[in-house]
């Protein structure tokens, strides 16, 4: 990655973990079948620690399935998948996850800070009262740090149903970060946002990645994040291609993957722009404005 100014959010411990040996995610000849249908097969990929990688491709090609497989929520039908050096599911406590989502109900009367806090201890039995003494203090500190990291201090005191979609997305990123994960999986986090919010959340995620967290983001439209990416996984009906964006995102590669003519252009500022995707961005930006 060059030419991108990343926010100075470096955490020494995270950098240390990021440079630990072995890739964050590695797949060899992996395949998944759901209900007798092969979603994808012969998938080979390697995502190194500290990278920001986008998973791209048309609808229905199995991008979310890949995320679920990484979380160990579904089994491979063939091949091998290693996540943080172990079977999928083993290190889930070190993974932050943002599912593809609708927004929260406007009437939901729970503060953003409480939603973030659930990311810390929501899976533990007991009453939602918090701990006592030092433990309570430590937990409050972790929650405050995560909220601070996404710049949502003012939002966190308001009921989450009352803040905007982009603001909810920030708080959910804080929730995913609150346990200081090594790996952050995000499923179309930019999809329901307007363009300025897409840009600011993309920059936020790039900053998180710079602090040593490996980020894998499923994206519908690559353009808002293209400048930050270290790697791209392109899933298509014709197979998958992985690698740095400049190598993967060529007109020939994408045309072969999608079975339809696609052009990758270089804009005057050096940015890559994908033209002729099966779903043009202008269409899916409107899709969520119900």
């Amino acid at each position: 990655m060059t030419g991108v100014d990343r926010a100075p959010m470096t955490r020494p411990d995270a950098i240390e973990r990021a440079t630990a040996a072995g890739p964050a995610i590695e797949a060899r000849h992996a395949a998944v079948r759901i209900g007798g249908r092969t979603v994808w097969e012969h998938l080979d990929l390697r995502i190194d620690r500290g990278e920001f990688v986008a998973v791209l491709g048309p609808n229905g090609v199995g991008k979310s399935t890949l995320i679920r497989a990484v979380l160990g929520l579904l089994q491979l039908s063939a091949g091998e998948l290693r996540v943080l050096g172990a079977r999928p599911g083993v290190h889930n406590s070190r993974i932050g996850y943002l599912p593809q989502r609708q927004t929260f109900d406007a009437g939901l009367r729970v503060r953003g800070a409480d939603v973030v806090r659930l990311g810390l201890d929501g899976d533990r039995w007991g009453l939602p009262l918090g701990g006592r003494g030092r433990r309570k203090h430590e937990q409050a500190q972790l929650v405050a740090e995560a909220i601070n990291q996404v710049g949502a201090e003012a939002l966190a005191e308001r009921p989450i149903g009352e803040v905007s979609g982009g603001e909810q997305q920030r708080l959910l990123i804080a929730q995913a970060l609150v346990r200081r994960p090594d790996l952050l999986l995000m499923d179309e986090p930019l999809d329901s946002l307007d363009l300025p919010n897409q840009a600011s959340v993309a920059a936020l995620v790039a900053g998180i990645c710079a602090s040593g967290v490996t980020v894998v983001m499923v994206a519908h439209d690559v353009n808002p994040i293209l400048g930050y990416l270290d790697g791209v996984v392109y899933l298509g009906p014709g197979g998958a291609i992985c690698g740095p964006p400049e190598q993967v995102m060529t007109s020939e590669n994408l045309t072969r993957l999608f079975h339809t003519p696609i052009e990758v252009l270089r804009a005057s500022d050096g940015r890559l722009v994908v033209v002729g995707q099966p779903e043009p961005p202008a269409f899916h930006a409107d899709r969520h404005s119900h």
Partner: protein
Amino acid sequence: MFAYHFMVNAFRAGTIVAIVAGVAGWFMVLRRETFAGHTLALVGFPGAAGAVWLGISATWGYFGFCTASALLIAALPRSARGARAEESSAIGIVQAFALAAGFLFVSLYRGYLNGVNALLFGSFLGITDAQVLVLLLVAVGALAALGVIGRPLLFASVDPDIADARGVPVRLLSVAFLVLLGLTVAEVSQITGTLLVFALLVMPAATGQVVSARPVRSLAITVGVALAVTWAALVVAYYSPYPIGFWVTTFAFAVYVGALGARRVRRRRAVMVVA
């Protein structure tokens, strides 16, 4: 007032019921499951009426039918994200049938006709020591269970997708909560009657969530409101000719409207300060 044993028992039962209704109702409102709660309440009516007809205590009718129907509702298949159009029509049919069956049992009983009123709209007369004990035991059990599952239940209620990914047993919690809700509804019905269950189950919880968005604080407010409303209603009902169900509902409604009004005033003031 407390010279009469029946009033002492009424206060005991009312206190127990208010606490458990507050806590379970708070989760019910948060989970948007008031419709399920309503169904459970209506199913309790034929249960109680049938039990009276068979010469058993109405208490067992409430508990038996409410718990069974909670399991039934939990077993209904549901679409992934809350779209329950088909389910709601099925539940509507069950509700109508439950009311009709209850009315039939009351007619078959041919006894004290005023019983219908008590079953539908509540009564605080003639609560026995044994009944108080049963209410207490069930309430303690339900509260203990909610104490254990409280935090993951909150997580699963606020955000089932992420909770699921984090290993929270979302489906199991949903079933467990419905059963606890069934038990709670059965308890509340015995004081407020089938049709006015929501006075204690929804209104205090809705009030608490209007006043505060902090889970612990709004839960505490909910229980406080439920207790205050119940005690006030018992006192007023003792000195007035009108039924307890009316007073509980009226007081709870007044507190809710008051909370809404206070919030509006506070917001307007905040806007004026900003402007």
